[in-house]
């Protein structure tokens, strides 16, 4: 074994960093996903987010307590439970975490407009890593200096929630590479490298701080190159031959010798129309006309992007700076100004009693706050006339969508419902009422009861089955006569029984089946019967004779027209 002092080879003079003139902040949130999770948990105890990763349920996000308890990222859930049986868990939602990071980035625009995505969004295990980059060149003095910026951010993040802080490590340096590495590997949580001293700060860090890929980090370790300094003492050609170009590039980037640009977040397109009025307007009619203009402006924006609005928000600013807000959801995405205006008219008329314009409205803003891609249906020019409207099959649906919107804007979203078929044998559950904004037209075989023709169901079903007195043969004979609402009916013809067993899992599968509790837990035998008068009824025996009940009761459930 050769003892190895640092070689006396002539050093390449390239370790002196170039002065970039930039000041880069790197933020790193080691526990971002866990700490910003919507899950409620005790932050003082181990908590982990779980996701499928490499064919197993693994921990993909941890809080600090979990790390202290010995859990580590990418550990499988059974392993984790073996170590910490009472670890709190929740399912990970990486998209949500990324969205929150983006939100955080927009929020950080208070310090600088130039916010960048992290350059290495994944850890060595292939898990998401959460960090941000800020270019604060020339901004720091506005907030009382660089340290003040970091402390301000840290303080605000520490108050992320009442019970939970967001852990942050941060560094300020002259290059993206140096700041990134220091944020993760420096000895202190917040480090600031004075201008021109990047090399001194970076060289003692481990090679992993250079944003190398996992294989290269491993190689450095095996070669005994424990710090960037040891790596940097080799001629760059030798390094490139063994590692490829990446480490040298990363080294040069960290030292500011190679340029690197910040990849900034761009806000999504906004559909917004705004009008400021020289004089306050109080008349509803005038306002309506103004909103109509805004609608036209908005629609031209939407059409340019091929989008349809699903939700519109209007904000009216009074001269006393009070803002009146109005939100309108739409059943179908729309880019039709006239339709939009009609919806606002409905609202405004309804408001007219309580509408208080104060000393007048001075500003109007209309935003399409939720949009979706929409294909514009082509208008039929002449064919429709010739073919007698056969091609216009889609028109009624569009028209119905318009009607829904108008009804909803007049009556409220939860009031306007329509029935949709539901795949259940239980008659009262075979139809569900769903808000028109959510209902979708689906027709499929899955929604057709395979044992029942449509004709076998009455048009009128009683809200609640009514008990009746029946004389019938046991065990499962059809009724001979029955008394309903004090009238005796003699049965001439009976079809049945149609046997329907209860949905035994009702009530076992979460809240969505609270309705299942209502109907009783016995098998029903339904009969269609006709009496001497020619009236037809739908009635059932509740419970199988001797299996479920000794003396089955009978109920009337519907009437055929």
């Amino acid at each position, binding site marked *: 074994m050769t003892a190895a002092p640092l070689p006396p080879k002539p050093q390449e003079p390239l370790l002196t960093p170039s002065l970039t003139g930039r000041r880069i902040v790197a933020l790193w949130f080691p526990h971002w996903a866990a700490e910003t999770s919507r899950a409620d948990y005790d932050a003082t105890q181990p908590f982990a987010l*779980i996701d499928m990763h490499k064919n197993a349920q693994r921990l993909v996000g941890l809080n600090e307590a979990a790390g202290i308890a010995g859990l580590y990222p990418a550990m499988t859930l059974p392993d984790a439970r073996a170590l910490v049986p009472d670890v709190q868990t929740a399912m990970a939602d990486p998209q949500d975490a990324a969205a929150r990071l983006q939100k955080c980035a927009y929020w950080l625009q208070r310090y600088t407009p130039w916010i960048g995505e992290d350059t290495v969004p994944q850890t060595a295990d292939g898990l998401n890593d959460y960090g941000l980059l800020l270019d604060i060149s020339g901004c720091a003095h506005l907030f009382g200096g660089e340290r003040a910026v970091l402390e301000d951010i840290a303080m605000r993040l520490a108050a992320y929630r009442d019970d939970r802080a967001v852990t942050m490590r941060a560094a300020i340096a002259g290059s993206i590479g140096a700041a990134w590495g220091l944020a993760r590997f420096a000895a202190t949580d917040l480090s600031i490298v004075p201008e021109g001293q990047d090399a001194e700060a970076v060289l003692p860090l481990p090679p992993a701080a250079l944003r190398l890929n996992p294989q290269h980090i491993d190689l450095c370790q095996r070669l005994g190159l424990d710090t960037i300094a040891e790596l940097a003492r080799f001629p760059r050609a030798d390094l490139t031959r063994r590692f490829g170009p990446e480490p040298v590039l990363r080294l040069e980037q960290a030292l500011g010798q190679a340029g690197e640009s910040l990849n900034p977040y761009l806000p999504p397109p906004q559909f917004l129309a705004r009008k400021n009025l020289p004089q306050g307007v109080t008349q509803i009619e005038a306002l309506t006309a103004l909103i109509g203009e805004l609608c036209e402006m908005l629609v031209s924006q939407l059409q340019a992007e091929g989008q349809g609005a699903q939700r519109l928000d209007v904000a009216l600013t009074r001269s006393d700076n009070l803002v009146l807000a109005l939100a309108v959801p739409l059943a179908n995405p729309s880019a039709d100004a006239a339709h939009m205006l009609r919806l606002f008219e409905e609202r405004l008329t309804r408001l007219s009693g309580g509408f208080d314009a104060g000393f007048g409205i001075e500003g109007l803003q209309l935003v399409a706050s939720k949009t979706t891609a929409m294909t514009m249906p082509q208008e039929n020019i002449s064919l429709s006339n010739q073919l007698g409207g056969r091609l216009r099959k889609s028109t009624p649906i569009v028209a119905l969508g318009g009607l829904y919107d108008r009804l909803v804007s007049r009556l409220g979203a939860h009031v306007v419902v329509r029935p949709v078929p539901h795949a259940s044998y239980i008659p009262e559950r075979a139809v569900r009422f769903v808000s028109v904004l959510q209902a979708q037209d689906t027709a499929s075989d*899955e929604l057709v009861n395979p044992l*029942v023709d449509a004709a076998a169901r009455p048009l009128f079903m009683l809200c609640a089955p009514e008990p009746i007195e029946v004389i019938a043969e046991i065990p499962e004979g059809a009724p001979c006569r029955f008394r309903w609402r004090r009238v005796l009916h003699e049965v001439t013809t009976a079809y049945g029984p149609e046997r329907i067993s209860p949905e035994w899992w009702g009530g076992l599968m979460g809240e969505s089946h609270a309705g299942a509790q209502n109907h009783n837990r016995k098998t029903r035998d339904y009969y269609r019967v006709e009496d001497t008068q020619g009236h037809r009824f739908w009635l059932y025996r509740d419970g199988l004779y001797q299996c479920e009940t000794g003396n089955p009761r009978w109920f009337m459930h519907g009437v055929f027209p």
Partner: protein
Amino acid sequence: MRGFAELAAISNFSFLHGASHPQEMVETAAAFGYRAIGLADRNTLAGVVRGHAAAKQAGLRYLPGARLVTQCGFEVIAYPRSRAAYGALSQCLTQANRRGRKGECLLSMDDVLGLARHAALCWLAVPPLRAEPVFGEKLAQLAAATRQVYALLVPLYGADDKTRLRDIAAMADWAGAALLASFDPLYHAPERRPLQDVVSCIRQHMRLDEAGYRLAGNAERHIKPEAEAQRLFANYSQALSNIQKVLDACDFSLDELAYQYPEDAFDPQLSPQELLEKLAWDGAHARFPDGVPEKLDGLIRHELKLIDELHYAPYFLTVHDLVRFARAKRILCQGRGSAANSAVCYCIGITAVDPSRLDLLFERFISAERNEPPDIDIDFEHERREEVIQYIYQKYGRERAGIAATVITYRARSAVREVAKVMGLSGDIASALLALNWGGGGKPPPREHIIEAGLDPDTPSLAATLALAGQLIGFPRHLSQHVGGFVITNERLDTLVPIGNAAMDDRTFIEWDKDDLDTLGMLKIDVLALGMLSAIRRSFDLIAAHHGQAFELADVPAEDSAVYDMLCRAESIGVFQVESRAQMNMLPRLKPRDFYDLVVEVAIVRPGPIQGDMVHPYLRRRNGEEPVEFPSEELEEVLGKTLGVPLFQEQAMRIAIVAAGFTPAEADRLRRAMATFRKTGIIHEFGLRLVDGMVARGYERDFAERCFKQIEGFGEYGFPESHAASFALLVYVSAWLKHHYPAAFCAALINSQPMGFYAPAQLVAEAKRQGVTALPVCINASDAEADLENTGYEIALRLGFNQITGLLKADAEALAAARRIEGAFDSVADCAARTGIGVSTLERLARADAFATLGLTRRQALWAVRALAPESKAAALPLFDGQGVSPAVAEDEHAILPALPPGMEVLEDYASLRLSLKNHPMAFLRDSLATENVQPLAVLQDAANGKRISIAGLVICRQRPGSAKGVVFLTLEDETGTGNIVVWPDRFERYRRITIGARLMRIEGRVQRSGTVVHVVAERLHDISASLLQLTAQHGMDSTAHLPKVLRPKRQTGRKTPREMAWGGSEGGCRAY
């Protein structure tokens, strides 16, 4: 007409369609007094044998058939009317199976029509839920092809059932088919409807609340009393009376599948019996050139006579043929199983166990009353078994040879996983449920464990899930191929049973499993793989090459007392079967002195004798601490050899017959009930009978209950004497090799990895303890595998390239070959240029310190290797392309890099070689440990009983045997030796994390000594894995990631410990060895 019969039953062998076992369907039909039952599963005959057996027992007439479901959705049940028609049906299913992937059966309408035209079957068409005209058309096509066509009338209790039945009747009339009454049952009783819904959802990957109309609307698809049938089909009396017509037409029974042994002409001149006699006597004379001993002579005559009476000669010849093939190819093999330890098998070379050393009665295995084929399993070297399998295929063809199926059933864990999904349990509850310790068996975990996991077992959804999962356990899930059970027939195999594709390319297997074959009395030969045979073969080869001595299994000198001395000292690491912790504890107590002691040793450390509490009585009697006495005179004959204590499976059977008055057939049923614990109810019934029977005959209840407990234990992991004897021989041979040729034995074991309980590190350490010199992997001295090397004054063990983790075999061979041609390598670049192996392989060699002989350290070698990396191409000058290695590169091989500290060298050894010849990692921690008063493990040997002690070591083995009630056994290793630790359940709960996770452990506890066996009972455990970091001097955040994998904290829960649970059935051999 009286006398209803259900002819459209399906069972759960229509995977995820039916919700009852075939037995349940048959038993229910019998209970309702049906005239017959027909069982026809979807596109398979997999369940018919079970139904057949159940019907036979219930005395019910039984029709085996299949429900053919075509890809166009036509469903029709086919019952063969003759043996030939059965064959045609089976062939039709085989063809359809072979078209699809595993588990698929691609059947077309043309297949059905073709079969209908050419074979005499009865056809029962199943109308779809909505009687659509297309059904009538298909029915007419079928009726045009054959006259025996019926349309099923099934009351479904839909809204217009009467109309539906009328429509079907009209269609059948139009098509020219008759009507047949049926309930088309999916389950045997209405209570199974929830389970039926659950399996439907599992099949369609749905949640119950999403499944809607895919499920049935009511619970009517079950077997109903005859009166119901009379009432419901009152308007269709023809449909009822037609049942009798079908029954009259189909008088085929599975009993007609008379099995014929393959009659390949072994010798044109001699009949099979004559040939067998000739071979047996030739073999006897060859084994005893000086004259066959009288006792053996008598045995051979006796056995040959019995074989002649039962016409089993072709069976023995078939097995002999396989063995002869293996011999010719120099593949080691050894027979075991009931008939294998007979004198005839010894003479014709199927086994090397001299029957005169044992005293096994041949009739015990082949009884004239039970006309059951003898059972011989043959173990082959695990790496060469495939050659034998290919030989079978080549000799008999795929038409006549096939592998038996294994029915994969839902076990507790899989059942809960599926049911939880269907019930829509949230992910965290489901994973918490699965995280429980489910054990290996079929029972859900106890309530306390569920509560402990933070779940409330009384929540309705959880309770329902557990109850349904409990019902699902034991349901067949799919068929898979058996590890080695071959069926060889004389006629075409596919006329006997359908054959399907296996997941492996070019593999097929039949639809019946071992039990089914047993029921029908069909010949099967288990061709199994045994790792130890490979190791023994390798040892023999190494000894022949380096010591010049040739051995075969049968020539190893018998009864060598030095070998027994070694075993008595429990120096059994690497020895077949007796190397586990439990066996090592038993060896010094049992003190084996002869071959039969080894037979006992192998059989005694098993769940059977342990659960039956037979171990301690046997040891006491053997050591003369208790008089040898027999519960009765009649049992003296049965238990004489084992000092009055039943240890073997046969003895338990004999007790049932002799002492409890079972008939041999009943005892046989008991054996079967034991082997398949899914019918726990039945075994309990047997238990009552056995105990009561024994008590009635004057035995003590306590003894009777222990006997039954033992039988229960055997049920799961049975061990008959003949198996034990075959294994004992391998125990002896491997112990003999270990004692006389430790280096060769160690090399052979390393080259046969993975096998056994111990890693190469422990095997090499053991060889070093025996005085063997071990040499490191070296680029200029190692071979592809571990080898022996004559160093001039001794024969040493040289580790091979196969020791390096992840090194490809082809690269290892390329290295050895290049060196043989042009001599030793003189640089890394030279090695790369002459072998053409890739950079990643060179890196592995560097990591393994294989370039040390060139004067390069690990890091220097790696630096040199990386210069050859493909990335360097970009940097290299085009001038040097194609001209080997550039001088510039060769020059800086000896780069100056920081030296690796010695501790790290050892850790690196572990990382790439899983062992280190330099030192033990613990040695580097010794100084710091000594300050904490931690003693080396070597002191345990002389430590006094009850002494408190603090020790530390690397955890090399963690076991939590099922029979030990939650006790965890740890084996620690340090530079001075190993130590055995016992962690009682209360300590385990307290130090759970450490017990499971720590790689390096410090333990404070009390010494417990009994004889030479020393344990430390742990009182406090400390995880000192982190102290390894002292050696690494690394930085960064994720400390464990930088450690070599073997030293990282690792999980080994008690959930599954295959290595100790192995040797399940007779086929278990393939799992651990």
